[in-house]
């Protein structure tokens, strides 16, 4: 078992492109850490740098108590599951799982025992003699997992391991993987672009954008106290609503609507040069009711247990629509005018997108 300590790590390519910029991140022993972000944010690069498949341009990477910057992947005591699974097509399931052990020059009997144990854990025992081409997508995914766990490494690196599964299987496998990781207790770094996966699987989630770490926190914390506007918008579906606003004395003006400025926000807002802010409101913190700002319903997505209502907010211009999460039994129809109630929880971001605080 091992912790991973990343200090000021960067990846700069020969053409000057910075893929990872000055990353500092501490992954605790036994933790399930998810790296999430849009494509091209550098999350896969980080994983490959930890694996040793990509070189580290600057900074330090420790696994356990060793600096591993210049070690070959096999010396880092890690195992990796690839997005494509990267199963060797010419080897059987047993040979695939046993391949790392074979390279470690383990005895055939030891390999057999350990492969069988791994296959048992992953319910692959019946398929040991098959070739990857004869397996279903879910089985292939488990073989890839098997190749990782058979080595009993101190770190698992998982690169979007569920993205090639269909939606139903993905949900089931998600839970199985979390359970497996908890049982084995091995430090795990998991890369995904899917924020639902990130939120449901990670002990902590690190959100990346353009090679820079935005925030690393537990899922609930990310959701309720996003560090900036990017994290706020990235986490949660439907996405958070953003409304441009202005500070006028003791009030925040958004369109025709004025909110009293909470006292605890005053110090932060006092430092702003021009008083422009962005308000962030999650769809569930807006309500449709008797009071509030009039808005026209543009679309209603009925999901059964709830309805996603898209309204055009008169004051904020035609393209500024708000998304409201309403109960499942609403009778709202397109074209209707409703009243939108603000107030439950409003995040305030400055012009650079940094979170200043919230209003309740």
């Amino acid at each position: 078992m091992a912790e991973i300590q990343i200090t000021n790590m960067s990846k700069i390519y020969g053409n000057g492109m910075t893929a990872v910029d000055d990353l500092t991140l501490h992954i605790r022993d036994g933790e399930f850490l998810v790296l999430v972000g849009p494509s091209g944010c550098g999350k896969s690069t980080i994983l490959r740098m930890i694996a040793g498949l990509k070189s580290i341009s600057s900074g330090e990477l420790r696994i356990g108590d060793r600096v591993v910057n210049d070690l070959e992947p096999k010396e880092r005591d890690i195992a990796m599951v690839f997005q494509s699974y990267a199963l060797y097509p010419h080897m059987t399931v047993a040979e695939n799982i046993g391949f790392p052990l074979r390279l470690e020059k383990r005895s055939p009997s030891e390999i057999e025992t350990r492969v069988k144990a791994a296959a048992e854990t992953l319910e692959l025992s019946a398929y040991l003699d098959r070739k990857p081409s004869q397996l279903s997508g879910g089985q292939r995914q488990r073989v890839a997992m098997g190749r990782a766990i058979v080595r009993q490494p101190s770190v698992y690196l998982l690169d979007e391991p569920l993205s090639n599964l269909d939606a139903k299987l993905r949900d089931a496998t998600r839970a199985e993987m979390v359970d497996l990781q908890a049982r084995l207790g091995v430090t795990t770094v998991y890369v995904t672009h899917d924020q639902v996966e990130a939120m449901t699987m990670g002990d902590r989630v690190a959100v990346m954008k353009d090679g820079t770490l935005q925030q690393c926190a537990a899922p609930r914390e990310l959701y309720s106290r996003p560090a900036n506007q990017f994290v706020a918008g990235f986490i949660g579906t439907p996405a958070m609503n953003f409304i441009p606003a202005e500070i006028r004395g003791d009030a925040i003006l958004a369109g025709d609507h004025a909110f009293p400025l909470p006292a605890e926000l005053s110090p932060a807002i006092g430092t702003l040069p021009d008083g422009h802010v962005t308000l962030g409101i999650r769809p569930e913190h807006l309500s449709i009711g008797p009071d509030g700002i009039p808005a026209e319903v543009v679309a209603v997505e009925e999901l059964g247990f709830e309805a996603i209502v898209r309204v055009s907010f008169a004051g904020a211009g035609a393209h500024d629509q708000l998304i409201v999460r309403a109960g499942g039994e609403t009778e709202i129809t397109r074209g209707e005018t409703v009243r939108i109630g603000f107030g439950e929880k409003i995040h305030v971001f400055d012009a650079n997108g940094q979170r200043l605080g919230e209003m309740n």
Partner: protein
Amino acid sequence: MNPTNRRIRTALYAFGIFWGLVIVLPFFWLATLSVKSRLDAFATPPKLLFTPTFEAYREVFTDSDFLSAIMNSLIVSTGAVVLSLVIAIPAAFALRNLTGPIRHNALLTILLIRMVPGMVYLLPYFVIYGRLDLIDTRIGLIIVHLIFNVPLIIWMLTPIWRAIPRDLAEAARVDGATPLQTLLLVDLPLLKGGILASSVLAFIFSWNEFLFALVLTRRDVVTLPVAIVNFLAFEGTEWGKIAAASMFIVIPAIVFGFFVRRYMIAGLTGGAVKG
């Protein structure tokens, strides 16, 4: 289908059959010549019914020059294939790992090297071999065959190799394989088919090669294509024998070629064709 289209299709159909006959009949004629007696061979009108005789084959296979030509052809072709593989496999491996303009230029260079007419290479080789005493040696002949066989094998293997996902090599590296182990345990098993097919094609090209063998051999290492021409020169009227010897060269080439025909295009054009 309208009448015009039907007529065109009928014409195509007829042309297909016609061409099938155009391919088969000359070959058939040569084959019959090899089992005709000399009298039947020159009969006018041509005899379609005759008593086959295997005399020509007997003569060919008791001709010591021909037997030594068989040996030479086998050794030179096999040697050329083996040596080509030794050079081409690492080269294809390097090309797989190269990217961008370097790879394009390398591929184009290899393509152009192969397209240069043989006669261009032959003259300098003739002079150099004269100095190095390599004329009329098997190794000399094997070396010139590399000019054509190495590009052929590189072309055929590079696309197959690139089709193997890069993830596999990375997975092997994470699993603890050295680059050599990755090559031996992961890449080569997956390339087996391609290597076999390109070897067979290279073998056929070496087996069929005439120009270099004609100029760079004298007596000791004459290969089959040159041996046949020698029949023509020294035993001008022995058509039965020439036909029998021809059958002996052509049939293995066709039989082996049949198994690798799917790869033929890549081998001939070096991936200059899309798809």
